[in-house]
Structure formats: structure tokens, C-alpha cells
């Protein structure tokens, strides 16, 4: 394993691990958002007159 190999491996895996950590952190930090597709307020009741 050359130094170049280590660099490519660490950077590639580091990038992917950072990306997936960022994404799941954002998705899971709001448990309600992760568990439910639609918050009650999102349901269009057609009575808001917008």
C-alpha cells in the first residue's frame, strides 16, 4: 500500500462517511420529520384562503 493509496482510500472513505453522517444527522435530528411524512399543519384543508 503506497502513500498515494492511503491518501485516496482515506479521502474517499472520509468524504462518504462525512456525507452520510451529515445527511442522517439532518434527517434524524427531528424524529417527527423522519417518522412522519406529513405534519398535521401540512395538510391542505382548503380553508386558509391563500
Amino acid at each position, binding site marked *: *500500500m*503506497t502513500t*498515494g*493509496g*492511503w*491518501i*485516496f*482510500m482515506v*479521502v*474517499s*472513505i472520509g*468524504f*462518504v*462517511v462525512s*456525507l*452520510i453522517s*451529515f*445527511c*442522517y444527522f*439532518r*434527517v*434524524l435530528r427531528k424524529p417527527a*420529520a*423522519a*417518522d*412522519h*411524512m*406529513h405534519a398535521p399543519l*401540512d395538510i391542505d384543508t382548503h380553508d386558509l384562503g391563500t
Partner: protein
Amino acid sequence: MSIKKEQWGTRLGLILAVAGSAVGLGNFLRFPGNAAANGGGGFMIPYFCALIFLGIPICWAEWTMGKYGGQFGFNSSPAIFGVVGRRSIWRYLGVLGLVIPVIVYMYYVLIESWCLGYAASFLFGWIDLGADKSQFTAKSVDYFNSFVGANQDGLMLEGSIHISVIVWLLVFAVNFVLIYRGLSKGIELFCRYAIPVMAICAFVVLIRVLTLGTPDPNQPELNVLNGLGFMWNPKGLQEGESWVSALANPKTWMTASGQVFFSLSVGFGVIINYASYLKRKDDVVLSGLTATSTNEFFEVCLGGLITIPAAFVFLGMAGASQSGTFDLGFKTLPVVFEYMPGGRFFGFLWFFMLFLAAITSSLSMLQPAIAFLEESLGIGRRASVAILGLITGLGSLFFIYFSNGLKALNYVDDTVGNILIVVLALVQTLLFAWVLGVKRGVQFAHEGAEMRLPFFFPFVIKYVTPSYLIIMLVMWVLQTLPEYAKKTLDDPVLKYSFGVVVVTTVFLLFLIRIGGRRWRAETVDKR
């Protein structure tokens, strides 16, 4: 029709379902082989470029158009393309979003059944490579050829029913039972359990591989570090060449783009269908990126560390250089597990994981066609499942019958994997960027989004991605089309295989024509 019949249960479930669709055999078998053969670590430069400028932007475009079409009550590519493009030509071009998953399912379910069959073979000790190490590889090849009937056409359907046909029937039935249960209770529920189980299996095998050390003290050069080096050391395409020269070769970039495409399931017609079950205020940007990053994790972090190092440690460069999916997965790796301490258990775990990866993908290939049949013919789920079961069952039997050298399977895989998905991706990109309009598309993607699209997205999706795709297609036409046409015309099996693709396409175009009137009528009052 405008009342949605189905919906995802949870956001996480949707993300895992999309990730499950993307994670497949390609992550563990195709990616490592491609990387090792096309520059090693250097391959990751074109790979990540293709991911950032091609894969992720098209993903976001698909998610957005899917959500857009879903607001009109549509869930299939032809109907969604029609409502986005507002011309019937787009509706007909949407046939690609059906042909691709349906055709791929026909042979993919077969490969999926091999994975389960191999898992059972390791579990019950059916695979026996003998005691003579010099014969391991030959016996492994024999086992594979006999398991899939690769020595002769029609072998699997002659006389008594072959074990692999029984496994195929079982896997086929499981797919349709799950798809019949519906989006939330079938696909989503299954993926919520399958993806974590898959990750655990992969981690166990990864730990085993990384702790192999130097299994044969007589061959100290065959160790894990050198195995990782074989995969990750930057190198040229030819011995002695610099790794930078590999980057200068267009082939490396084409291979990297093809890998990203195949891996992310973009241009498959699946994401657009899955996203169509979302509500207007549901997030697509973060969800799309999360599903993509999950796929990348399985591909780069697990696939990149397991397959090639394991093959190298026991079989050296010759074993690790096998880049074909079937060669590496079903001929070389069984030999690796035969050498490996506890190999039977790890072999079972590995092939069971591949089976889970495959079934989460094959399920996603059925859903677009189910949605389409329901929409175009106005029929219920039971009828659409029955019709699709008949079509894909017959198609699958075609590949089971024409099993000699796996010619039919490889040919159709090449046709769909190298051409049709690129064409569909181009159609989708043009539809999103030039017909729907980038500004409108971005605005719609941002409705309910939990993160904003990057500033470069509009420019990339409008100019860079289509140019990239057009270059890919032009290169294919110039380099491969003449040979492709010649071999299709010369070989009867390939001619029949091409016929399967054409007949399926024509049949689906006919159904689009039937569905077109209903869809037009439904959208008139909604615009």
C-alpha cells in the same frame, strides 16, 4: 384517479427504499472491479466528478419531477413525463422508464436467485471444491456453470426441475408477494429491516477480511495491506504507466460515469416513481442526498474494502483482477471462502447479503410498472400484479432457457445498462432543465426542502449534465454501435434477446396510447 391510493409510511422508510433500490450487486462486485482495473485510487477522481456533476443532479431532477407528477395523481414515468412536458412525445418517451426496470427485472431476479442459491449452498455445504487447492478455481467455475446452466441452452428446463429453477420460483414469488402488499406494507417495511441486516452482514464480512493478515506465511506478499493496495494504489491502465495517464484516457471517465449511473439507479425510472408518492411539502433535496450517500457508503466504504482485498489475499493479482461481476462474484469469491477460516459461514453471510441487496433493488423495478398498469388500464393492484407477473415471468423464462454462456443475459444487460439508462437520463435531464425549466424546477424542489440545492445545480443540470450524457452516447455510437449491430445480427440468441426488448417496448407503447386519453382528461382541470 386523482385520489392517491398509496403513500409512503415514513420518510426514513422512503429513504431506505430508494437506497435499497440503488444498493445492489454493482456496489460489491462491479465497483471494486472497475476501480482496480481503471486507475485504482485514481479512479475515484472521475468517479466523484461523475457523482457530483451527473449522478446527484439527475437524482434531484428525478425526485423533483416525480413529486411534481404526483401532485396530479400520477405515479408512472409516461404519465409524469406527459404532465411535465405537456406534449404526447414526452409521454411516449416515458416508455423508457418502464422498459428499463421491467426488462432488467426479468434477468435480475435470476441473478438474485443465484445469490440465494449460493447462500444456501454455503449454509448446507452443497458447494464442495474438494481438497486439491489447484482444482478450486476449476471446480468453482464448474459449480457456477452447472448452477446457472451456462454450458447449454435449455439445460435448466430439461427433465426434472433444476434446483436453481426452484430457487428462482421462490424468489420470484417473494418479490410479487411483497409488491402485492403495497408500497408501505411491502417495499417500505421490507427495506426497513433488510438494509440494516445487509449492513450488519457486510460489516461482519469486512471485519473478517481486514483481520485476515497474511494467511499463507509462505507467501508473505499476499496480505491484507497489499490487497488494499491493489484496490486503492493509484496506477495506470497498463503496467508501468503513470496513474495520471489513466485520467487522461476517456475510457476511465466513461467507466466511472457508467458505474455511478448503474449504482445510483438514475435513469432507471424508479426514483421518479418512488418520489411521485410524496406530498407537495415533502422534502426531496435532503432525502435524495441521504439515499445517494447510503448507496455510496455501501459502495465505497464496504464494497471498496471487502471484495478485492479478499480475492487478493488468497488468490493474488490473478484472482483480484477478475473484473466481471459474475467472474468475481460467483467464480472467484467461492474459492476465497473455501480458503478462508470459517469460510462456509462467511460465504453464507456474503451471498445472503448480496441476496438482500438484490431483492431491495428488484422490488423497486416492479413498482413503476405496477403503477403504470393501474394508471393506464384503470385496473386494481391484484390485476396489475397478475399481468406484470405473467410478462416478467415469461421474460425470465427466456433468460433461463437461453442460458448458454449467459449470452442473452449479458447482451440485454449491456443494451440496457450502457445505452437505455443513459438515453433515459438524457431525456429526464432535458425535460427537467429545458422543458419544465430550471427555475421552476428548483422552486418546486425547494418547497418543503430541508436544505437548499447547491448554487451550481442550475448551471450543471442545464448545461454540464446533458453535455456529459450526449458525449457518452456519441462515444458509444462511434466506438461500440457497429460491433453491437454486427453481433446482434450474427447471433440468433442475441437477435431473440433484442426482440424481447422490442416486443416489450411496443406492448408498453400500446398501453401508453390507451392511457393517454385518460391522463389528458384528468390533467385538463388541474393546470
